[in-house]
């Protein structure tokens, strides 16, 4: 038996093992990844939907001034064609936009507060908006910095 023959055999045996290993739990791992993807997608886009709903109320209730309306248009534009997949470029775009959207909403809510001064006992703030988002979606794993909320995220994975 020469060396080439043996090397060929080694390669063949390795490949056979590899195929078998790759098949093992393939579906299970795919499903596990999908559960996690569903969860993270939900967590990342909840706040955007929430802001979309809020600006519709702000726009049609009461009489928002022109600068509020202008800011609402900007937010709507930023929300309009946002890509909902995990492609690297789209995730980067999401990160850039959500910062702008948050800032715009903060401005809108402050303008609204000034406009309706004294009439609102309990004005809406960005803080309140984000608090509700947190109640519904839990904390994003990527941003978790204490064990308690990490456990919360894991609990959701077990709810499946």
């Amino acid at each position: 038996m020469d060396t080439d023959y043996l090397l060929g055999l080694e390669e063949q045996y390795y490949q056979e093992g590899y195929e078998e290993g790759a098949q093992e739990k393939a579906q299970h791992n795919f499903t596990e990844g999908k559960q996690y993807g569903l969860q993270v997608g939900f967590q990342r886009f909840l706040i955007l939907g929430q802001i979309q709903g809020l600006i519709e109320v702000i726009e049609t209730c009461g009489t928002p001034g022109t600068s509020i309306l202008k800011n609402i248009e900007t937010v709507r534009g930023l929300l309009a064609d946002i890509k909902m997949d995990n492609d690297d470029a789209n995730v980067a775009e999401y990160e850039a936009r959500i910062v702008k959207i948050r800032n715009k909403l903060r401005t809108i809510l402050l303008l609204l507060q000034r406009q309706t001064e004294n009439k609102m006992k309990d004005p809406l703030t960005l803080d309140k908006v984000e608090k509700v988002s947190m109640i519904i979606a839990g904390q994003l794993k990527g941003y978790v910095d204490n064990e308690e909320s990490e456990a919360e995220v894991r609990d959701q994975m077990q709810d499946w």
Partner: protein
Amino acid sequence: MSSDNVLEDVWGSDNDSPHETISYDLNKLRDNHNKRGYLDGITHSREANLQSGFDEGFPAGAKLGMEVGKLVGLLQGLANKYGDQDKSLLEDFNTIQEDLRINKVLTKTHFDANLNLQGEHSLIVKWNAIVKTYSEKYSIHTGL
């Protein structure tokens, strides 16, 4: 070659005739490389499958999050504005935060075995109707 000899080729034997030693070594070679390949296969495919599963789940989760968020945002806006004079609106705003929590929306009962949504999500349908009623009551143009 008798059938006994064939079996000895497979399993090896204590008899160390040159022929059988080679068979034994080949089996050992096979075991080693098979095992190495198997472990690599598991590791590599685990990562690849987790990732492709994640990439498939993410947009579906994003869509659900967006839908839930919109309903919650509409109710939060309305509750903030009219809640002090509309108790049921305020109650519904509290209830929606329980009812549409991530762990109630993302449960197996709403999905098939491949984790695809089965038709429309019943909780979202339910709250869509409730929020629509309030939107009409307070003349919000939502497209619901």
